[in-house]
């Protein structure tokens, strides 16, 4: 790693422009290109292979489990009356929730002019896409006869019957498929200028051809940037209501039903907050090791980590409020079924699922109030994993505890996952990490042109951007 290239005398900007730069050590434009593109050039580092080989093996296990399930039937899972939604829907909601942080970072923070987002948005958007891919497996598989999955799309089946749009499950099909498509479009559009950077640096014919093809002939023309920036703003404006609607619609899968514990109006905002909470957990899990291994400390600074910890704390506390409010409403409603459900949630046979949910999502993230804790990378990394363990238990609590004691005690049961359930879930990590590792190997994992655009020298009115300021005092 080269020594920080701090210019000998940095001209001081006027007071209204003085801010802590987002890119540390006054790195130059060229340094940003070299550092980020360098990660996707040359030989893969050893640790990359150490991560990649097990990921591919886990992906193989996923394919085996899915083939076994398709050829045998959904009976290979632990789903059994009365718990007809088990790990399949838990993992679907868990993975799709993780995706939400990527869109929050890329779209909502863009609209709020949070310029720090540029350092993490590319990797977070990639995480979104791969997480939605993992999520998409479950609804496609849990129908049992996957060769009839096309019935979900607005195509008439053999009896000319159309899909039933009065069901929230159909809304979910549209929400998730739109979410995936728009996330890919947004991600790809952001990549176009950076693929052009890769194209102009490429040394082999193959790389020149492929990066050249996918950068679509981008030249960096300002007439193009003008349209590009407008389109980016519009896509951010479209993705914001999209991401809020996706997990709202996922929550409607539950809340439109009549079941105690599911039938609540608080679900949409509560699910969205939980999704962003878990997604930021995953962003931290991925970026803290990558930042050290790829020596990106000047781009993903401690300030970035600090802000992400604060977002995690805020959303975790919203989730905590929602948990408390569910209990309050159960008591306040006076409905014996509601009251029973929530007593059963906290003290019933699945108490072992409720306790980690409360401790991992509400109690432990409160440590993020302490600055020392937010600045300690090991502590933040461990907490980021705890967050996602907690969020997994949240979906377990909602789905399994919601179903396992039906209205009549003769309809009560105890759900256990099968070994295939467990292996399929572990296998989805193989899919996720295989995709993510390939992404960091072949594509710029930091939005190069955006990061260049937040440096002080990118501003034509900043002294480091070449602006010459007339001293007003001298004139007077």
């Amino acid at each position, binding site marked *: 790693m080269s020594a920080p290239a701090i210019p000998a005398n940095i001209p001081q900007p006027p007071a209204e422009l003085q801010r802590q730069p987002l890119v540390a050590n006054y790195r*130059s434009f060229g340094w940003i290109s070299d550092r980020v593109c360098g990660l996707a050039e040359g030989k893969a580092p050893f640790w990359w292979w150490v991560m990649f080989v097990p990921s591919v093996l886990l992906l193989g296990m996923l394919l085996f489990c899915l083939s076994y399930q398709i050829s045998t039937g959904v009976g290979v899972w632990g789903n059994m009356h009365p718990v007809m939604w088990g790990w399949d829907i838990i993992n679907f909601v868990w993975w799709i929730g993780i995706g939400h942080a990527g869109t929050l970072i890329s779209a909502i923070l863009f609209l709020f002019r949070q310029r720090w987002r540029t350092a993490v948005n590319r990797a977070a958007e990639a995480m979104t896409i791969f997480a939605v891919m993992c999520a998409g497996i479950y609804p496609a598989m849990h129908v049992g006869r996957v060769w009839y999955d096309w019935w979900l799309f607005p195509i008439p089946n053999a009896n000319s019957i159309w899909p039933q749009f*009065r069901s929230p499950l159909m809304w979910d099909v549209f929400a998730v498929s739109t979410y995936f498509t728009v996330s890919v479009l947004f991600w790809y559009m952001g990549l176009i200028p950076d693929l052009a950077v890769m194209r102009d640096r490429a040394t082999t014919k193959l790389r020149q051809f492929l990066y050249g093809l996918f950068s679509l002939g981008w030249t960096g023309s300002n007439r193009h940037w003008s349209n590009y920036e407008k389109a980016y703003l519009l896509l951010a404006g479209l993705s914001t209501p*999209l991401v809020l609607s996706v997990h709202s619609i996922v929550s409607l899968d539950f809340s439109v039903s009549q079941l105690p514990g599911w039938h609540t109006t608080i679900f949409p905002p509560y699910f969205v907050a939980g999704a962003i909470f878990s997604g930021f957990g995953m962003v931290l899990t991925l970026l803290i090791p990558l930042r050290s291994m790829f020596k990106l400390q000047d781009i993903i600074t401690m300030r970035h980590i600090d802000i992400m910890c604060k977002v995690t704390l805020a959303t975790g506390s919203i989730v905590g409020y929602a948990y408390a409010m569910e209990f309050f409403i159960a008591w306040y409603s006076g409905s014996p079924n509601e009251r029973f459900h929530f007593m059963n949630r906290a003290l019933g046979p699945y108490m072992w699922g409720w306790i980690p949910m409360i401790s991992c999502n509400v109690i432990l993230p409160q440590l993020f109030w302490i600055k020392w804790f937010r600045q300690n990378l090991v502590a933040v990394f461990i907490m980021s994993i705890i967050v996602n363990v907690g969020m997994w238990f949240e979906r377990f609590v909602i789905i399994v505890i919601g179903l396992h004691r039906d209205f009549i005690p003769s309809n009560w049961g105890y759900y256990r996952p099968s070994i295939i359930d467990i292996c399929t879930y572990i296998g989805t990590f193989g899919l996720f990490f295989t995709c993510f590792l390939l992404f960091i190997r072949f594509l710029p994992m930091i939005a190069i042109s955006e990061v260049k655009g937040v440096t002080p020298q990118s501003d*034509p009115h900043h002294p480091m951007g070449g602006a010459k300021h007339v001293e007003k005092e001298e004139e007077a």
Partner: protein
Amino acid sequence: MARPYGIIAEFTNAASVMHAAETVRDAGFRKWDVFTPFPVHGMDRAMGLKNSKVGWFTFLGGVAGYTTGMLMIWWMNAYDYRIVVGGKPMFSPYSAFPPSYELTILFGAFGSLFGMLFLNRLPRLHHPLLKNKRFALVTHDRFFVVIECNDPKYSEVETRKLLENAGSKHIELVEDED
């Protein structure tokens, strides 16, 4: 046969290229452009560009998406093959709203991306500037002003002098190979 495409002038920082752009704009050139590694704020005004038209494509996409959703659901569930489910109405704008809302966003997003590509005339497999070695630095850390030879005000000597006076240290004529 090679014929001249345009004159390129290199700049090393954002402020100097912006001042150069203002000079070229005021000189009344039409077929010219500024090339930067990242979008420079204020450059649209320095070049005299109008607001981008991408929004119209997004708007049309969104309207098309919402209309498609509502009409599709009404036609499928309330007209073409009616099935009573739980005594609910055959068509209700409330239950049809979530999928239509998603389609609004989906078509709007397609409108934004493809509208942007259409307005920029991309994808483009060949561009004379991309053949130039020096110009490859535009994605790295350099800024360029390019004035095309078929601009009515273009003259090899005068235009070169204009760009030199604007502060460019490296000026080059780029040719287009047919």
